[in-house]
């Protein structure tokens, strides 16, 4: 159930190197992904209220590793497992005891009372964000991580594919969620990370719900809407498999028979994707991916992705990780992110045209020594 020793060792080595580079002598990790990345322990996977009711954490120092609040059966046997009291007073005492000598502590989000108590309990420590160390470590995936990402992707795609015949006129968007989760569970995927989306895309701006200025008409919150023949149904979801996330995004025409407009839109999406893939190689920057997509559209047209989402994002033990391409972080930040072998990205351009509607699909790629390799199957 816990992650294998080789995977854990490679990740922990990367994290400790990143800690050292960030000048931190301890990390307090509180997100499920970060706890698992550092330790291989498997915290409860659920929404934020479930995590609040069953809190967990990991403490990483250059020589020691502790996991708190995770069932010991779900903590690797060579990692120290501790209780994490629910009350802030007890949790502060437990963490402070493990951090006794630390002076520069990187922290993730902490509940208010816990953060306040730690600051009092460790008056000589300074606290900074753990994000720089975490992001640096997780930005490059090991081959073992890439293999897990590919498997998560393959299994999720199979589950989504099993639902496609059910996307027919008369079915309600929300009804497809249960079918998908059942198909996923039959393939061993039981931890749903991202709400499964089945949304009829707007064919005209007038059909679209309110979107922010400058963005293409778009819709991504499913409801009880009844799907009609020919509707362009945007699908997007992510499941957790052995600690790693999938991200499957396709557009499927209700009834399965694409019309001329659907073919045009898919071809445009493909054109954008190909332009981005052409520059997706080591040494290029995230900004170059951004420019490649925009160049096809021309300066007068909106960017080919929904606002305030993105053209691309990272993925790994978290569903949406840096780098981000196409957000308000801007081209300057994207220029600083250089692709290297082991960078894993989800590319998700969106083609939309007034009267024709939309087509959005996602492709996960890993940057290799010479270019990039798709971890996703082509959209059906």
């Amino acid at each position, binding site marked *: *159930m816990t992650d294998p020793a080789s995977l854990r060792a490679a990740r922990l080595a990367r994290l400790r190197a990143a800690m050292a580079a960030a000048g931190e002598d301890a990390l307090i990790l509180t*997100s*499920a*992904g970060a706890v698992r990345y550092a330790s291989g322990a498997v915290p*409860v*996977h*659920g*929404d*934020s*209220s*479930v*995590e*609040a*009711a*069953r809190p967990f954490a990991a403490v990483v120092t250059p020589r020691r590793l502790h996991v708190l609040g995770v*069932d010991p*059966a779900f903590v690797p046997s060579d990692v120290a497992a501790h209780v994490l*009291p*629910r*009350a802030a007073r007890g949790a502060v005492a437990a963490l402070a005891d493990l951090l006794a000598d630390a002076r520069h502590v990187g922290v*993730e*989000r*902490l*509940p*208010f*009372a816990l*953060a*306040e108590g730690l600051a009092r309990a460790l008056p000589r420590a300074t*606290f900074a*964000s753990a994000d720089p160390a975490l992001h640096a470590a997780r930005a490059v995936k090991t081959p073992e991580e890439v293999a897990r990402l590919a498997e998560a992707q393959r299994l999720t795609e199979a589950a989504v594919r099993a639902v496609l015949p059910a996307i027919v006129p008369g079915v309600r968007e*929300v*009804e497809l*969620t*249960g*079918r998908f*989760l*059942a*198909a996923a*569970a*039959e393939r*061993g995927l*039981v*931890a*749903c*990370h*991202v*709400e499964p989306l089945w949304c009829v895309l707007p064919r005209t701006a007038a059909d679209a*719900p309110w979107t*922010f200025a400058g963005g293409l008409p778009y*819709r*991504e*919150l499913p409801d*009880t809407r009844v799907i009609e023949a020919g509707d362009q149904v945007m699908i997007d979801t992510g499941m*957790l498999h052995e600690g790693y996330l999938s991200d499957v995004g396709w557009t499927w025409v209700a009834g399965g028979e694409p019309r001329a407009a659907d073919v045009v839109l898919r071809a445009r999406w493909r054109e954008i994707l190909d332009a981005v893939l052409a520059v997706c190689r080591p040494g290029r920057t995230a900004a170059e991916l951004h420019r490649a997509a925009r160049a096809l559209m021309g300066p007068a047209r909106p960017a080919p992705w*929904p*606002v*305030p*989402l993105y053209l691309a994002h990272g993925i790994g033990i978290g569903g949406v990780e840096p780098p981000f391409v196409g957000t*308000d972080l*801007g081209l300057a930040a994207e220029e600083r992110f250089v692709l290297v072998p082991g960078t894993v990205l989800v590319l998700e351009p969106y083609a939309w045209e007034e009267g024709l509607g939309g087509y959005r699909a996602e492709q996960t790629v890993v940057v290799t020594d010479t270019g990039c390799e798709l971890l996703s199957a082509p959209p059906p």
Partner: protein
Amino acid sequence: MPDASDPARARYARVQAAMARRGVGALLLATPHAAAFASGARRVQVAGSGGSVPWVAVAAGAPSALVFTTDPDGAPPWMPRAAVEPLRWDPDAQLARLGALVAATDGAVACDVVAPALAALLAAAAPGRPVIDAAPLLAEAAGPLTDAEVAAIAAALAAARRAVAAAAEAVRPGVALTAVLARAARTMSTGGARFPLAEGFLWRARRRLERLAPTDTVDAGETLAFELGVVVAGHAGVAGTSVALGGGAEAAALRRAWADAAEALAAHCRTGATTADLREAARAAGAGQADLLAHGLGVGVLPPWVDLDGDDATPLRAGTVLVLAPVVASGRRAHRATRALFVGDGAARWLEAAP
């Protein structure tokens, strides 16, 4: 007066009232369920507790929360469009915007989380003003629930219970638990559920409950305890049960003992009682727990978290929902289930039939 038929609007009114009572000028929320609770805004749901940068801000007296989102159409219809802004992926830009909002208010600033950058921002944007924990404020605003809110929670409970009942039918010796969970998933959408609250909790219910992985199986003669949760229309429902694969009279006796323990706990679920009273009642009934003895329910699994290992004495509040989850054991077998009730001024009212 807020529209009591709109759960989100009723919650927002309670948040504003709690802020006024506590002298809070600005409330900043980063935790997804807390942010959804206060604002009523829906986003694509993602598992996990989110980041450390708030995406909902509430100013004292404002007609609605201010929401930073990727899904503007998830804002409630009564929220002015000016109160819905695009989520900023640049944390510095997001924090700067929040700083400007805080600076325009008076009084204390309440936050649900703290991160170094947020602490630094507040020191600059609200110098000299108290920065306090939002948790007590949110707990105060959790009730009293309106009839519409209780009905929404009851609908979510029913969806979860249907899923659990379907799953229970699939439990057989040697069957992979993934197949059991698949059976539950098939039914969840019929109740309108869009997202599972968590992966299923699975235990081998021996004298002591042992958490299982979904790839595990249970054997003939054993008992499987499990709990599933769903989110329906922004409200959470959870349902737990135990399925004995054999055991005959012993298993039947445990089911009766569990029902007795649940009734004993329910008898203490009234205004004026505390979480300490529930712990005492559980011990008197010979009941244990797996994770928690009981917890609140609303937009998620909420406080009070009644933990047999705890030492708090949190008052139970009229107008809230509690989920009771005692565990009883005898011989080599245990039984765990859940049952939700509404805490009123008098005796508690069950919100679902006995499992």
